[in-house]
């Protein structure tokens, strides 16, 4: 039993993270400060939420690349609505609106994928273009909004932890971190302790057996994509409050990194295996690498290249190991 724990994917990842952190920390002590830790955490809240989305879909055996587009679309529409109506009540309704839009978009995904059997990759690649394209077309272009609604500006300033370092620079962990914690716990619970979640694993393992065992494939598929929509919608608003701007463009392009990180975290692309913990660890590694590239002084032009190399390395190692086992 103990041996199993030591050999598990998650444990190996955790060890790698500790080693990486130490190596980088020795090279550049800034890395290991509490302030830096908080900054990293803050900048990756959205990525962690996206990782939850990808994990659920991947466990069921699919690949969803539309989550950034859903986040962008639902948050953009919500922000525009806020600007127009000047709403300044509870932030809860802002999140609710974005979540509902996200769920609607997720529903569309579910219909295309389940009812019409369109392969998940092609379906979500297309719906990404459809959702962003639709708001671009029907809502007058994708403006970059720098004067975000007051209500969001206010939320930006709500922090959980604030700390000041020796030079007087302030670091703060926003309240939205709590939302991440809640979503993570909820997703973990669903996957581990509900039959909806077990149904997702079962579909990923063998659709045929899942059907025979009595799982309601339609219900489960709809749940997956609507839930992803919900989380994406929420992530979208969080992103806007962190960035203090609404920029659709900044959402897009993250698909690969998140998917790769989740795959590195132990989720099988073919489905049936994966965990929330693994996804979190995978993203953590990526975040650390990204941060270290910056600290190493690699220009932004070359960052894309190095991250790509590293990702392929990560996926490659895990794929190669799977190949040997097979």
């Amino acid at each position, binding site marked *: 039993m103990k041996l199993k724990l030591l050999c598990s994917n998650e444990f190996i990842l955790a060890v790698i993270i500790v080693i990486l952190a130490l190596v980088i920390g020795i090279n550049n002590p800034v890395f290991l400060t509490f302030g830096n830790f908080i900054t990293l955490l803050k900048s990756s809240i959205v990525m962690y939420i996206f990782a939850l989305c990808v994990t659920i879909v991947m466990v069921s055996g699919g690949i969803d690349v539309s989550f950034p587009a859903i986040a962008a679309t639902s948050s953009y529409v919500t922000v525009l609505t806020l600007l127009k109506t000047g709403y300044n009540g509870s932030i809860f309704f802002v999140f609710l609106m974005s979540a509902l839009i996200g769920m609607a978009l997720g529903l569309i995904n579910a219909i295309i994928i389940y009812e019409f059997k369109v392969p998940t990759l*092609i379906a979500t690649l297309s*719906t*990404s273009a*459809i959702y962003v394209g639709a708001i671009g*077309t029907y809502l007058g272009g994708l403006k970059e909004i720098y004067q975000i609604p007051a209500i969001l500006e206010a939320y930006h300033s709500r922090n959980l932890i604030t700390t000041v370092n020796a030079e007087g620079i302030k670091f703060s962990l926003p309240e939205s971190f709590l939302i991440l914690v809640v979503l993570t716990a909820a997703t973990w619970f669903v996957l581990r302790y509900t039959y909806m979640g077990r149904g997702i694993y079962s579909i990923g393992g063998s659709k045929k057996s899942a059907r025979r065992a009595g799982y309601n494939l339609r219900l489960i598929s709809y749940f997956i994509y609507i839930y992803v929509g919900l989380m994406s919608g929420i992530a979208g608003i969080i992103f806007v409050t962190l960035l203090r701007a609404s920029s659709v463009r900044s959402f897009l392009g993250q698909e690969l990194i998140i998917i790769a990180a989740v795959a590195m975290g132990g989720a099988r692309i073919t489905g049936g295996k994966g965990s929330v913990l693994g996804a979190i660890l995978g993203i953590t590694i990526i975040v650390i690498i990204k941060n270290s590239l910056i600290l190493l002084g690699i220009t932004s*032009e070359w960052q894309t290249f190095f991250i790509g190399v590293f990702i392929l390395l990560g996926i490659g190692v895990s794929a190669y190991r799977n190949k040997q086992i097979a």
Partner: protein
Amino acid sequence: MKAFLMNIKKNENDIKLFRLIVAMLTIFIVLVIVLPDKFLTLNNLKSMAFQFPEIGIYALAMMLAMMSGGIDLSIVGIGNLSSIVAVFTMTRVLNPETTSLNIYLVMIIAVIIGLLTGVLCGVLNGILITKIGIIPILTTLGTMQIFTGLATGLTKGSAVFGLPEQYAVIGNGYIWIFPIPLVIFTFMALLVTFVLKTQALGFNLKLYGTNAKAANFSGIRNDLVVIKTYALGGFLAAVSGLTIVGRTVSAKADYGNSYTLMALLIVILGGVLPEGGFGKVKGVFFAVITLQIISSGYNLLRFDQYFKNFSFGLLVVVLMIMNYRLSRK
């Protein structure tokens, strides 16, 4: 009854092609009516004839990857990287002014190096897919990042100029009445047809794409088939990239961002099955033209790129749904 079944399979392909050609002609006619003095002009037709080969050759590359049961999201990255390498060769490494070499020799060498780059990129894709075992979508997502990243790093993100003006003829000149890009596309289409219909690689590719396991059991060297297919795809992507540079007379790391989605749309429209094993060049050909007509129409109607992306995404979904319903009957 068996003859009946045979007709069904044949009919499915024919129906798709027929629908495609009808759609193409319909859209063409609609645009002629809606834009009477803009669409049917010589200028517009000329500009379409110069543009569609670029995306057409990318579509051929995508087609090959899809027929092998995979997908190649790195084609535009390969195209851009190859063209940048070629342009660097022409302007820095072998600059005709400083090295006093014949300018045509320089261009030829540069083109060859560019094509080689494309092939190598394709081979990398193939090796990652077969020897390491990363599925095509993740592999090509990763290599797209790497190729584009490399290109961005090399060019520091800005466009590269300084090409010899003789090179511009590739993208803007004619052989008799035919635009050179069109000629290049035709040759590439013929090349792909040649491989698919007469070469063992084409035959094995189709078998592999249909059922990789049975292909292995039949003695087909699956790994080699995949590597050669992606290598050929890389070659085609490089050809397209080099042709584009001929037209724009500059090279940029992120040119043609929407081309990948367009290429995907074209191959699906053209009847290539995402599961692998099936596809026809003539289907892709008509699909390319259809899409070019739509694209030009959009430009003339002043639709922005968002609508373009929106409608292309929508088209892919609608097509896949139609295909699904067709296969259910």
